């Protein structure tokens, strides 16, 4: 009965809500759906790693079977389906825990750099003048050093470990958010609704975050999504160079770097972590591309 009334009260021609519209656009895109499903699977593996992983990622349980092959190769065993690494640890468990590490790095870098980018970008756009100039020159400076080189230098300064990886990657990706937020805020500032809000006596903080920021969100969301995968790739590259997470942390890039010399003897120890990186990054990028098309139909060109 109550449901009937609710249905009756809904206007027949209500325009679909913003969220519903975006969702429809997304689900029409097969790539984006594939990306989303993969992200959810990897995300679940990351969250429930402690329950899914058959063994510990750090304990050398199979010391007698170091570099044993995965189950689909002769000599493999179901007790370690993806093989054993050079230190006698179960590869499958390490890969599952690696999902947690890599996603955490990606999301942490994205959240912190978006937050910092929003604050700095709005500041630059609203203040203008010296503040704007100083900030943007600083961002130019950061961008003039090739990203991995800068990350390497930062790690050299603060030392290699998991948390520092996040900082080293973050500083590289900060400028793009600052510039994006500043540019979209500058485009919004001369519009009538901003003037109206000012006339109505809205304070500067409220004007920045509640009036202008929501209108800059679409490009920011897309950039942030793609930023997760970029950050994961960058962190993996650092790990590969031995400048990221240190053993026994099962970060995918570090796993690959540590096992590099074993490429011929035990290819699976090298190839599997890389495959995990690739699949996750492809999934996030597909989803990000789909999101862009869904959020901004003007850009939709295939």
């Amino acid at each position: 009965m109550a449901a009937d009334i609710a249905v009756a009260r809904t206007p027949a021609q209500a325009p679909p809500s913003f969220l519903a519209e975006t969702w429809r656009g997304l689900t029409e895109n097969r790539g984006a759906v594939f990306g989303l499903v993969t992200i959810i699977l990897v995300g679940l593996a990351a969250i429930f790693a402690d329950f899914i992983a058959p063994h510990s990622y750090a304990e050398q349980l199979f010391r007698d079977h170091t570099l044993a092959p995965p189950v689909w190769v002769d000599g493999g065993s179901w007790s370690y389906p993806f093989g054993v690494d050079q230190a006698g640890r179960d590869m499958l468990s390490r890969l599952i825990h690696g999902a947690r590490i890599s996603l955490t790095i990606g999301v942490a870098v994205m959240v912190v750099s978006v937050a910092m980018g929003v604050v700095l970008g709005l500041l630059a756009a609203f203040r203008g003048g010296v503040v704007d100039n100083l900030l943007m020159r600083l961002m130019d400076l950061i961008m003039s050093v090739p990203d991995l080189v800068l990350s390497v230098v930062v790690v050299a300064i603060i030392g290699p470990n998991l948390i520092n990886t996040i900082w080293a990657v973050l500083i590289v990706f900060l400028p793009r958010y600052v510039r994006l937020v500043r540019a979209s805020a500058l485009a919004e500032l001369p519009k009538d609704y901003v003037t109206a809000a000012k006339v109505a006596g809205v304070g500067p903080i409220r004007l920045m975050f509640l009036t202008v920021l929501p209108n800059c969100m679409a490009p920011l969301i897309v950039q942030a999504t793609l930023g997760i995968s970029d950050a994961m790739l960058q962190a993996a590259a650092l790990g590969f160079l031995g400048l990221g997470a240190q053993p026994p942390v099962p970060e995918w890039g570090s796993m690959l770097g540590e096992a590099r010399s074993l490429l011929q003897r035990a290819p699976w120890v090298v190839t599997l972590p890389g495959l995990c990186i690739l699949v996750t990054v492809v999934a996030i990028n597909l989803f990000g591309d789909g999101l862009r098309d869904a959020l901004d139909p003007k850009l939709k060109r295939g």
Partner: protein
Amino acid sequence: MALIALTFFSLRLVPGDPIEVRRGERGISPERLAQLRHEMGLDQPLYQQFWDYVKQIAHGDFGTSIVSHTPVLKEFMALFPATVELTLAAMLFAIVIGIPAGMLAALRRGKATDYVVTGAAVTGNSMPIFWWGLLLILLVSVKMDIAPSGDRIDLLYDIPSITGFMLIDTLLSDQDGAFMSALSHLVLPMIVLGTIPLAVITRITRSAMLEILNEDYVRTARAKGLSPLRVVGLHALRNALIPVVTVIGLQISSLIAGAVQTETVFSWPGIGHWLIESLGRRDYPVLQGGVLLISVVVVGLNLFIDLLYGLINPRIRHGR
């Protein structure tokens, strides 16, 4: 100037004294330590050190490696051609394959070819290239034994360095098979480093082409009976190239970053390999001078691309 300040001060924050590292296991007397510090200017106040450093750079002196005792600039110049050769080859590879692939995808929009090309581009764009390099070594060098997996040329050749570019030097040296050897050493690193630019160029060419194929002047060209090849190759491609060139310019910085990974995987004796090795040895003058030199090169190249862009697209030139 700001770049100098950034590299200088940031690297001073590095924990661990370079002298401590060099001292190693053998003990050095405190007097000798103080003398060494004095020689390297490490006992001066920080602003004094900085000012001295700026003066040095103004004189073209980017410091001296504390491991090999060679000037940083000299080491850089010796290794830089190897990186340039690799990046140029990678860029060429990306352009030669990327532009036709993008055009093909645009012309066959929505067909199987389009899906294959776009799918490959998304994968390439997401590629962890250090892994891709190792994978190619495994498949091509180890399993199939077609191309070698490291260094610039086989050890049995002794090529005098004239231009620094191995391909040119081997031609000049007139030794049998040397050129082919150098070329086979270049192929895998080139593919690895070129993968991401290839993906980017393919995507941009495709979307630029799709946009332009809808323009009125393309329809006019078709209507007046020009052959499809002429329409696509001449009228459409020229305009589609504008965003492509911009993107190629934007790739320079990421190519250098990619070179760090590629050179490490393939033991390619270029500046990326050199930087990572220096970091391992805590050779700060090299790291400091090297990062500075790399950044200067990148900024210079970007400026050059901006000028080039004005040449290709007259609209920008008049606009300014």
